[in-house]
């Protein structure tokens, strides 16, 4: 889980604002006037500060009806195969986790994939879920092993060099989960305490960067952090608010505190071989954000944490 600091986004926005001379919207994305079909020029493998990570490929034309995918596109191929292959994890409650009652993997991320399957087949169940490791997400999307990765995956320029991303579908940020009785009001109050995050994630690096010097503790997965928390091996867990919400939902003695101290825009990763598929996904996302489907999905999975915010605005390049 590579996470990028807000700073990176701010710098990116500033640079783009200067070089392109375009207006930047609230999300810091360059907003272009709609144009006709763009050639699918490969995005440049630029250093992270000099790219606009949030800007995706612009949808073209009208959304094709289900089961009527244009010939020669990747969607037509998926239709021929009979199922959409989604890469995700199974340990992030509310986003993608195994339902203990049914044994199925479900959540906000899985529903994002199911909505794409519905747009292709007219049936959200025509989907195969592949559980992939956090460190395999970019690679398996890039080589087309999976059609789509929706897995609390933050867009950043480093990843953009290898895969395409859809428009942003969720805005997350790093917070802290502590015991109900704790007086801590944020990560700053946890100096010297053991704070858990997944090994190899930048959540773990971010913990070490905090001024009050909490002690980072690495575990294999988020649920493993919760196990460590429940067995008093760590004092707190710190990662994206979304993941923490899922952990807190499983432990009535835990609470999430503090402001978001990083910004993590989530988007779906897709192979660069299929720009038409990225455009198609963006079109479906745009429709769902507009017609209330996005809000319904939010209410289903995250409704317990308050009313749905406005969906993240799409930005295109």
């Amino acid at each position, binding site marked *: 889980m590579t996470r990028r600091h807000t700073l990176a986004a701010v710098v990116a926005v500033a640079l783009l604002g200067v070089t392109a001379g375009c207006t930047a919207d609230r999300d810091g994305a360059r907003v272009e006037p709609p144009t006709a079909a763009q050639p699918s020029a490969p995005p440049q493998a630029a250093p992270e500060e000099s790219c606009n990570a949030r800007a995706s490929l612009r949808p073209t034309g009208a959304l094709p009806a289900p089961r009527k995918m244009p010939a020669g596109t990747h969607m037509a191929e998926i239709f021929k195969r*009979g*199922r959409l*292959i989604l*890469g995700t994890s*199974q*340990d992030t*409650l509310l986003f993608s*986790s*195994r*339902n*203990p*009652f*049914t*044994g*199925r*993997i479900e959540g906000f991320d899985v529903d994002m994939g199911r909505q794409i399957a519905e747009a292709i087949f007219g049936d959200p169940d025509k989907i*195969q*879920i*592949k*559980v*992939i*490791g956090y460190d*395999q997400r970019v690679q398996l999307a890039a080589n087309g092993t999976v059609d789509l990765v929706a897995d609390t995956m933050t867009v950043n320029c480093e990843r953009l060099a290898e895969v395409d991303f859809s428009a942003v579908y969720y805005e997350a940020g790093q917070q802290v989960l502590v015991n109900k009785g704790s007086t801590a009001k944020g990560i700053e109050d946890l100096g010297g305490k053991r704070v858990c995050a997944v090994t190899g994630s930048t959540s773990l690096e971010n913990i070490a960067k905090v001024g009050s010097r909490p002690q980072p503790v690495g575990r294999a*997965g988020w*649920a*493993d952090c*919760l*196990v460590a928390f*429940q067995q008093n091996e760590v004092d707190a867990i710190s990662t994206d608010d979304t993941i923490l919400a899922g*952990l807190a939902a*499983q*432990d009535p003695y835990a609470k999430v505190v503090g402001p978001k101290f990083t910004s993590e825009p989530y988007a779906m990763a897709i192979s660069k071989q299929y720009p038409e598929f990225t455009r198609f996904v963006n079109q479906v996302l745009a429709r769902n954000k507009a017609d209330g489907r996005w809000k319904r999905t939010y209410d289903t999975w995250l409704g317990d944490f308050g009313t749905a915010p406005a969906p993240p605005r799409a930005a295109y390049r």
Partner: protein
Amino acid sequence: MTTLQLDRPGFTRVAQLRHTSPGRLQLMLSALLALGLLTGLLAGVAASSADSGTGDLGGRAQPLLTEAETIYSALADADTTAAQAFLGGGLEPAALTRRYEDDLTRVTTALTSAARRTPAGGESADTVRELATGVTRYAALVAAARANNRQGLPVGSAYLSQASALNREVLQPQADRLLRIAQQEVEDGYSSARSSVWVTFYVLLMAVLFATLLHVQLRLSRTTKRTFNVPLVAATGLLVVLGLISSGVLFAQRAHLDTAEKDGSTPVTLLSKARIFVLRERGDEALALTARGSGGAYEEDFGTVSQRLTGPYGLLEVAAGSIGDDSAEEHVRDAMVAHGRYLNLHRKVRELDDSGQHDAAVKLAVGAEASNAFQGINDGIGAAMDDRMALFTREVGAAGRGLGALTVLGPLLALMICALSWLGLRARLEEYR
């Protein structure tokens, strides 16, 4: 220097004995008495060493090996069963819960009796202690997984995977170490049961005693008018009897030990290896399904393991070939047929999972057909192992027969040989008084 000077008069006196007739008789008598006593001592030592070695092999080493195998296979089965119980979703099926609990009971029972059979302070005792502690932690983690699952909390899976990691990465290697120690102890048990060094000395001494007895009698019949010295003839006869009894008992022991090793221990070791491999296949299958598409390593391991199990040089075929008994071999053949059925089903499970039909794959993998095939393999191997263990116990029991008696009888007969030698030579010595 002083000792040599002190010894010299004694040595000279003994040397001088050779020059007189009564002196020579005295020398012969002491040689016979010394050899007789030594033979008696060695008869006792060789027989009791073989006896205790055989007893240790049958009563401690081999049972320890069986228990180590039980611990290993029950741990592997518990891991597989727990993974399968969670695979389907919902509450764990009662049959699988029961099977898991049976496995844990088998592990703890075997650990208790293994603790009795390991010498305190040894590596095996340490391993048993570590296993006992680890199994308690493992059971607690699985219990937490079940409690969370009962509440519908996905964190249950994390508890289960922690338990599984503990089982696969810590407990099973420990059980494997115990198994290796036990295997070594069985091998050592065979050689200490054979007590080859003592038995060789014993046989050599008997030969020397026999030769000396004959030599003394030849000399006596040459120097006196009597052709036969009756007590010495009787002593020779007794020695022949002792030799016949000893070789009868010891040859029988070795023959039974050879059978126990060839038809008992060897097939049991092969079968237990096969059983552990079969369990690993089943575990790999369940874990590959749990991993949902990223279980490549498990599938690879499945392939490696099943390759070692099947084929003309596979473990099952070799185990079947190592059994010299038709009905026991039949059990292994049954297991091989069941294994073939299981492999076919596994192929179908993988086809389903790879084509995106995960639910159907899980259903087939934990379904009755696959469970029956798997049970068939286990039953076949288990029946063959029971049969071979029974043969081992029988043979080792037979190997120990007569050794206890020889421990007493050997020294007793040797003492009688000494007494007869003394009787035979005293009569001659008295002629010089």
